């Protein structure tokens, strides 16, 4: 198809599909009238059974924890995939030797380095409070990854210790993933069902409460931080360290 024919075909098809979709969505309850029952049942049982008021965290890490397990592994597989796709070239280049690059100014590095600590603390805070307030492992993990990239940009631009830092990030990603999986298996061993809570529930609202939920948050946080930093690092390798061919 020529581009013109293709866009006409697409417009007609999407017009038809869009129309059918609009007809379909008018069959939904009007906006603002969530009919339940799933969410309402959870809202009723979670505070008593899981000692947390963070319904989303309880859903993500416990009631629908198996989805989250799958989701974390999607992230894991995608990062492995992106790394595998980008990495082939790096190995070749390493054999050829590391290209020298200009060092950034001291001010740049100092500013970056000064920001790393606070950002990590903030990320850790978001992860640790995921079962009490909005946030949790995913958002916090991305923030921590941001700090790691900042450190990378501030200190490592001169001569990136590739193998070491990449292996470390890889290890963090795998550790987080394995941690969540082991948490699931822990439920099986200690409580008889995969992903079942096996830790004391504590008092709702405290940092150490809600059983396995905060542990899951930490595992996911480690994995996400490792994964996001790893994928950014792999892209950085591609983007900045490559000599033109």
């Amino acid at each position, binding site marked *: 198809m020529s581009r013109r024919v293709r866009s006409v075909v697409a417009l007609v098809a999407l017009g038809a599909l869009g129309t059918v979709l609009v007809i379909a969505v008018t069959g939904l309850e009007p906006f603002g009238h*969530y009919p339940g029952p799933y969410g309402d049942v959870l809202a009723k049982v979670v505070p008593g059974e899981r000692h947390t008021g963070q319904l989303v965290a309880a859903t993500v890490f416990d009631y629908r*924890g198996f989805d989250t397990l799958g989701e974390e592994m999607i992230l894991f*597989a995608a990062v492995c995939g992106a790394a595998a796709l980008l990495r082939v070239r790096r190995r070749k280049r390493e054999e050829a030797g590391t290209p020298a690059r200009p060092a950034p100014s001291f001010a740049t590095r100092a500013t970056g380095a000064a920001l790393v600590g606070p950002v990590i603390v903030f990320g850790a805070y978001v992860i640790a409070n995921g079962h009490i307030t909005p946030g949790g492992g995913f958002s916090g993990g991305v923030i921590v990854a941001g700090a790691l990239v900042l450190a990378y940009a501030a200190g490592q631009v001169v001569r990136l210790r590739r193998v070491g830092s990449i292996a470390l990030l890889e290890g963090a990603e795998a550790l987080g993933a394995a941690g969540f999986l082991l948490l699931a*298996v822990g439920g099986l061993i200690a409580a008889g*069902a995969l992903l079942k809570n096996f830790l004391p529930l504590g008092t709702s609202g405290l940092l150490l409460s809600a059983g396995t939920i905060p542990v899951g948050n930490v595992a996911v946080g480690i994995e996400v931080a490792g994964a996001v930093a790893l994928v950014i690092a792999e892209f950085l390798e591609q983007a900045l360290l490559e000599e033109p061919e």
Partner: protein
Amino acid sequence: MALAGLAVVVPLLAAAVLAGTTSLRARRVADLVALAAATAVTGLCVALVVRTSDHSIVSWMGGWHPRNGIALGIGLVADPLSAGLAAFASFLTVVALSIAWHQIDTAGHLFHALVLSFLAGMVGFCLAGDLFTAFVFFELMSVSAYALAGFRVEERAPIEGSLSFAITNSVGSLLLLIGIALIYGRTGALNLAQIGVALTHRPPDALVAVTFALIACGFFVKAAIVPFHFWMADAYAVAPTSISLLFAGAMSELGLYAIARIYWSAFAGPLGPHIDTLRDILLILGVATALVGGVMCGGQRHLKRLLAFATVAHMGILLCGVALLTHDALAGVAVFVVGDGLVKASLFVAVGALEHRRGSVDEVALYGRGRDLRALGTVFAVAGLALAALPPFGPFLGRAMIEDAATTEGRGWVAPLLLIASGLVGGAVLRVVRTVFLGRGPVPPEHPACRDADGGDELDRDPGTPVATIVAGALLLMAGLAWGLVPGLVDAATSAAARFTDHLGYVNLVLHDAPQAAAAAPGHPPTGTAFLYGAASSLLAILVAAARTVPEGPLRPLHSGRIGDYVAYAMVGAAAVAVVFATTLV
């Protein structure tokens, strides 16, 4: 009962361990760990099949059992068909990993971790009793598959194939997800059984019909149903051979499995009154897919693309089986998936070995160069006949059961068309025997297509390795042939399918923990007509093999290799299916 959950968690744990230690371990360690994990999963799934022979098993993640008919958590549902498919997929993974043992191109980092997460995605998807969980594991399988398809990143074709694979399939997943959101908006449930109950509370309307259309289209993309199939040849031809085998033997089939699972657990109630219309729509799609696959298969000279289009044709046959919406036809589907999967796996292994020996997968370049490779030629020849549904082997048995079920449902027109499709597929494989292994008869015409797609798998040049590979191929082939002769298979498959299609039994099992009685349904062995059709398609295959070329009509230019075109066709298909469903199923 933790087998189901473990079958998902075990490969993932192994994958995490392997990915976390890439810089610390030797290649062989990864091979061994991955093989051990895949073998363990196969064992777990086979154990599930055995345990579910009397009654299906639901395991609730987190121990959250349903309360008052409302599912709080996620349940994995194992019955002989779902666990059996998971077992077959993990068995093929073991085969794929064994084949990959000798391949340099798979030595790269992370290959094994990706194969294992792919496996976990397939197993979780088969067992999911929850619509969103099915989506998540479907995505896990897909994302791993995108990366695996593009794994030979040093060449051009894998990059393009992987891109078109990933983009078209992401659009498919998007359709699926919109469907899931709409069904949640209607029912407030994600558990399939609970959705099934909720949908019967009010008469079906456009929302229900469109939702089913979107979910079906999402899976049609994965199953390569016309016109959603364009990406498939590109992706399957460029992946490492071990991975192509896994894609063709297991991944595509899962798309159709999902349609059957979701129809019978959730939509059988509301769409039941329109079952005849639905049957016809799906049958038309199935027959069209079978014929397009068959015709395109005949026009290929790149052997892996040829097998990819053979897979398209077989997905069409399978969709016909699903489309009939009876347990007899579904039993045929189950039989066909295994029989056809084994034979096709043997062909992929054989292509890999041929590539190893002769450094090409281009039929024209290989003309006459396989004369001394007798064992390989024999595998090709026997597999070609088996794919042409020569009685009484595995693929024949499955196709015959589907055809007989179609005739019983008053769709006598289906069987002759499927006959043509498998005749074309078998003929294309037999033509390769004639040209490559015998070096006789006319050379297939030159095609500008896939010039760069011929790059080899860069196999080890160790002359000792392929013997084991050829033996593996021959064993797979023999298993595929013998599959049609297993005593009691028809009855067992029919009983399993009868339980699978028992909507009320499923609902009561999942939501009310009421054991689902084993449905003893008598199986129907192939009729005389089916044997006749099998013989006819084998004959057709031999005729096709002798011909120089098969007329393709305007089909080939449509396969333009352009991602934008492919997505546009998929949208045309989705719009058509949605409009037809919305106007005929309410």
